[in-house]
């Protein structure tokens, strides 16, 4: 049986699933419920200056009847009195000593404020601190959140202030609202951060009410850019994560992966690309804390199946499989094949290929069912037909190498080989 124990910067938790700093971790009552449900740890919702929230606060991107593909919020950091938060954190740590308690902080932009916040946090017995340099709305206008994370110099300075007094591990949470997270990561590592976490939310407009013409969420007839998260952002998060895992400096510190993680599969993908644990929010906000049950169970089964005894054994294994385009093997060639026994004749492969790709599928009209076959000589192996096919393993991509040896683009150019004639 796989061991799901996680140790992030020495902070232990029974599993690698933490709840991210967000509304679900704002109060003792929520966090207790989360721990009872089985979560390994929480990052308590950001503490900092006093704020006032508005109503409404959330909006979503729904797709073909599936709700919450993406989730957007304009909620600020915790709007509860600091003393109450600190008291509750202390109580929860005492009640659940085996779970990880990280506290997210966003102090005013001066050294003294940060020092005070760090000290007060440490007094609660919390195990770690996460610096919120990523919140893209509300706090930015006050020179906090993403406006810190977007400027490596400022980010480094704040980390330095924190590290002057911090006695517990410090994780810096990065914003994705930049063209690359690497400069900020390198800067905060230079400033002394012990670990990184990413991504925070992405600035967004999720949609507009077509009757009122006001974008969502509607606050008295107006809206603002919010922070976008949920399943839709996972691919973006994985990309940013990979850039850190591949960077010589950034990869020296552990990374906590965040961004659209809903299932154990998502979690495994983050860990394969280098995150030591993961943080979850949107999925819990959609279905409640009970989702952790399948996350643990699914992860454990997968690890058993693959023969991994601990999480460390597979963290980062896929990083090496993400290369630069010019290093891809040009001689690798695949061609689609349609299993006629499995085909249900929906024609989706045909119309997708015919209208939008390479006209590589034959159609033989029948009544009512057409027959579809691949024109092998035309197929470029793009995957589109396989992607749109509703039947698992009906369309498979079969290997037909152009030549046995590995050949990349640089070598291809050197040899002056002919380009595609499509």
């Amino acid at each position: 049986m796989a061991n799901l124990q996680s140790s992030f910067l020495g902070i232990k938790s029974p599993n690698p699933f933490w709840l991210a700093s967000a509304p679900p971790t704002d109060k003792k009552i929520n966090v207790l419920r989360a721990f009872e449900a089985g979560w390994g740890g929480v990052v308590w919702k950001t503490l900092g200056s006093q704020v006032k929230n508005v109503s409404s606060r959330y909006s979503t991107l729904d797709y073909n009847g599936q709700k919450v593909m993406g989730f957007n919020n304009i909620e600020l950091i915790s709007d509860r009195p600091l003393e109450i938060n600190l008291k509750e954190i202390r109580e929860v740590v005492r009640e659940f000593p085996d779970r990880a308690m990280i506290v997210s902080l966003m102090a005013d932009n001066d050294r003294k404020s940060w020092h005070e916040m760090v000290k007060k946090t440490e007094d609660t017995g919390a195990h770690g601190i996460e610096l919120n340099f990523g919140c893209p709305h509300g706090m930015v206008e006050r020179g906090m959140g993403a406006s810190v994370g977007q400027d490596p110099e400022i980010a480094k300075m704040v980390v330095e202030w924190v590290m002057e007094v911090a006695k517990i591990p410090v994780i810096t949470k990065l914003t994705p609202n930049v063209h690359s997270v690497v400069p900020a990561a390198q800067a905060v590592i230079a400033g002394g951060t012990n670990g990184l976490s990413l991504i925070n939310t992405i600035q967004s407009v999720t949609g507009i009410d077509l009757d009122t013409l006001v974008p969502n969420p509607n606050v008295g007839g107006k809206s603002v850019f919010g922070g976008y998260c949920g399943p839709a952002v996972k691919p973006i998060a994985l990309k940013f994560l990979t850039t850190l895992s591949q960077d010589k400096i950034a990869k020296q510190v552990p990374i906590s992966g965040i961004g659209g993680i809903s299932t154990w599969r998502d979690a495994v993908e983050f860990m394969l690309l280098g995150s030591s644990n993961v943080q979850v929010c949107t999925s819990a906000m959609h279905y409640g804390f009970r989702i952790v049950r399948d996350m643990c169970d699914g992860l454990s089964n997968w690890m058993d199946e693959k023969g991994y005894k601990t999480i460390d054994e597979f963290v980062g294994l896929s990083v090496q499989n993400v290369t630069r385009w010019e290093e891809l093997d040009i001689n690798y060639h695949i061609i689609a094949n349609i299993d006629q026994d499995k085909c249900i004749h929906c024609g989706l492969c045909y119309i997708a290929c015919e209208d939008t790709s390479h006209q590589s599928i034959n159609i033989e009209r029948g009544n009512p069912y057409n027959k579809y076959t691949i024109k092998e000589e035309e197929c470029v192996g793009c995957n589109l037909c396989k992607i749109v096919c509703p039947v698992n393993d009906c369309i498979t991509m079969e290997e037909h190498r152009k030549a046995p040896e590995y050949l990349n683009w640089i070598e291809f150019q050197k040899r002056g080989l002919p380009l595609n004639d499509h």
Partner: protein
Amino acid sequence: MGIKNNRLSTEELVANFSDIHPPFEHAEGAILEANRCINCYDAPCTKSCPTSIDVPLFIKQISSGNIKGSARTIFSSNIMGGGCSKVCPVEKLCEGACVYNLREEEPISIAKLQRYSTGIAIHEKWKLFERKPSNGKKVAVVGAGPAGLACAHALSLQGIDVTIFEKEEKGGGLMTYGVAAYKVTPQSCKEEVDYITSIGGIDIQYKKELGKDITLAELQKKYNAVFLGIGVGVARELSIPGEDLEGVEDAISFIYNLRTNDYSKISVGDKVAVIGMGMTAIDAATQSKRLGAKEVTMIYRRTENEKPCTDVELDLAKLDGCSFIWLAAPKEIIGENGKAKKLICTKMKLGEPDASGRRAPVDTGETFTMDVDMVIKAAGQIPFEELVAKSELKNNGGKISITKSAETNLKGVFAGGDAVNGGKEVVDAVQAGKDAAKGILTYLGIK
């Protein structure tokens, strides 16, 4: 007890004859089902629809919240899309072709989704079509059934002034008079006819029967073209002794009476035998049961494999508590004081395939007798042979012969629907009406 009416209370009758098609209670349900549809290309469902409704498109339009567009998609192919979504044997048409069947999964509920969009459109009286200004051409349509209405609507759309002559008091044809009331309620039939004619340019003259109140020659003279959508008429005789006994009725008039009178006034027996296994036989059997008949037995000369009705229809009869005798044909009805008392049947077996491709029933010589007090004949309908012949229309046993453009041997006289095909589905009649309208427009040099 014998044949009598008023077997059930008003409440029971209302319950038994209410619409059996459950609607989607909420938009969410329709959208959920719409999103199951994978939007096939050159979709088998569309190809299996006699009117070629673009099913993936109208379903996608439900999913995107464009209900008006969805209804227009349906009605532009099938103006009786509302009624068809209730009476079509979809299990052998669109839903039967749904690719989900090939994955052993439930097909998309196409009919239910179609009811959703069309139901809203009819209820809200959405004006989805604008007729062109009148071009002065006049066409007479005989019969306000599915073929006639579809033809009239398509013609009016192009600016033709249409007059429909209908022998009954209401439009809808067999939808109104010949289908089980729990499939299409009288109310929904009326709403559908009103909705179709709301486009304008269609005048329905009721209680005008061809051959009685009007003649074809007269119509030919007064109108630029004529469409005959007169349907089929009389029930086929069994041609067995005892057919004229009291208690022997044909399914067509039984259902007609039921659709034109208060249910409490319709008489039904204790022990009813229904001869036949087509859709009309099912409608007669189930409605006998729903009127309060104690025992209803359906008798068919072949086996379940050859039955003309669909499995869904058969299940309906089973659920209503009807029983079935396969491989039996009526031989004689024995009476007592002029009333039907016993039905003698011959046991059959299957022989070689006949012209229909199905194995033909062969008389074994063995018989059995059953107690009955009512026999309903539902062995098919025969065309208006005499009427057709009198009008000098070329025909085949009463079925009017037409060209590819739906024209008869008489210049400017077109025909379609059951009058031509001898009796098919409503949806086939609608397509025939559309085809004829196309032929008429070409004939009149329009478009």
